[in-house]
């Protein structure tokens, strides 16, 4: 059993708590115990402190990491922004003497000290490293045989690879999420815009139209090239864009299809048999039908194997 400090961020606990619930349900059964990091703040996201003052960004991020250090656990997070910010912070503090000093001085104001004893993991990386596709496959109740998944890893889990403890063998052609979905026995074909940005993040708040333009290109690649049954994301921001943004495009008639979207652990929890009302309940693009298909009698693993 591995114990990890769950860093929630903002989107997941405040807007998409069904994703939080999916972590709390699925991970412990797979051997990852979660402890809360009480008092954790926003990572802080790219548009806030990082865009205003570098040392202050690093200090607020470092404070979040010290919460895990105090509990002697590694950080695990499901939001790509949080992951990117915290991993980048750790990298900068540990490679730049000057910034490290500046951060320690700031942390001293609140009686804290950065030690560097906690690693920062993305939840997908943690699942991949500490559980592994094989064990995941053992633990699922329903399989996704003959269902096609389009994966969307999200930028911050790909680049810059130098800040990550667990790296994609080739971040431009990512395979970690693919293998995790294959552990659920789904088909996970390649599509050309697989590594492309979904358009969420700073772009969405700066220029919604341009942001949706990127999303549209990605969705069309998914629809036309592999006609996926669902999109599986590894980032809560990507989730909001792929789901909510897709709804906007659909309502405007810019696309004429709907593809349900899941955060990976939501799909995992569903395959493990957890209640969709708890682990997959907040969405714009309807998921009821596909959820019913997933948690159906004929998908029961025992039955298929027996």
């Amino acid at each position, binding site marked *: 059993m591995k114990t990890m400090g769950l860093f929630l961020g903002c989107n997941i606990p405040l807007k998409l708590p069904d994703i939080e619930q999916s972590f709390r349900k699925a991970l412990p059964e797979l051997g990852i115990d979660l402890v809360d990091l009480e008092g954790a*703040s926003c990572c802080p996201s790219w*548009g806030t402190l990082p865009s*205003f003052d570098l040392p202050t960004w690093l200090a607020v991020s470092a404070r979040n990491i010290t919460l895990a250090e105090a509990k002697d656990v590694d950080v695990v997070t499901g939001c790509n922004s949080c992951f990117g910010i915290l991993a980048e912070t750790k990298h900068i503090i540990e490679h730049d003497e000057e910034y490290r000093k500046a951060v320690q001085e700031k942390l001293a104001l609140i009686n804290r000290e950065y030690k560097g004893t906690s690693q920062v993991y993305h939840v997908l990386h943690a699942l991949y490293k500490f559980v592994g596709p094989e064990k995941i496959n053992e633990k699922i109740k329903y399989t996704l045989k003959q269902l096609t998944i389009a994966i969307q890893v999200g930028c911050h889990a790909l680049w810059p690879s130098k800040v990550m403890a667990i790296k994609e063998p080739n971040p431009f052609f990512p395979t970690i999420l693919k293998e995790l979905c294959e552990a659920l026995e789904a088909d996970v074909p390649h599509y050309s815009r697989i590594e492309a940005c979904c358009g969420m993040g*700073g772009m969405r708040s700066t220029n919604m139209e341009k942001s949706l333009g990127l999303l549209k290109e990605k969705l069309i690649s998914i629809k036309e090239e592999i006609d996926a049954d669902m999109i599986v994301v590894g980032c809560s921001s990507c989730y909001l864009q792929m789901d909510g943004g897709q709804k906007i495009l659909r309502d405007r008639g810019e696309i004429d299809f709907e593809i349900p979207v899941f955060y990976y652990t939501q799909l995992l929890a569903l395959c493990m048999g957890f209640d969709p009302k708890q682990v997959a309940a907040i969405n714009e693009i309807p998921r009821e039908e596909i959820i019913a298909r997933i948690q159906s009698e004929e998908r029961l693993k025992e039955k298929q194997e027996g």
Partner: protein
Amino acid sequence: MYEGVVVLNEKDRELAIKTIMERGGDGVLRCIQCGACQSTCPMAFADFTLNPRKLIRLIQLGFLEEMIEDSSTWACQACNRCVEICPRNVKPFEIVFAYRRYQAMELAFSTSAVQSQMNLYMKGHAVFSEAYKETRQKVGLPPETPTAVSYPEALKEIQTLIENSPIMELGLF
């Protein structure tokens, strides 16, 4: 002077480069304008007026103030794809952010940036939703989050860090 021509000068150039370097964009002089960063940058895909390559060129030539009202830089996704592939270790993303920091300190940023900054200061969360307790209960979670918004002493720490930073000079809070 012709309308279509700009005169280059060393003074503007020095100021622009210094401003960016001081704010974390230390690679600005290494850029050779190969265009690799632009070729896979989401900002360029979406056709924003600025992208990392173009921004760097403008800075290299001394055009610092000229783009201050351009909000393109705030569309950078911080995806870091440019950092991964730049052949000169320019870290283009850091230059975009260094420029943002310059813009921010000159009060040239969007209202959405102000809102999330305020949220962070007041609630500890840049993204905030008043209805969160209800949403959490609906999926079977306790209404309170284990995060800063539920812990006043944590919020105090975050506020202390922000209060002891140059951001206070902006008079946002």
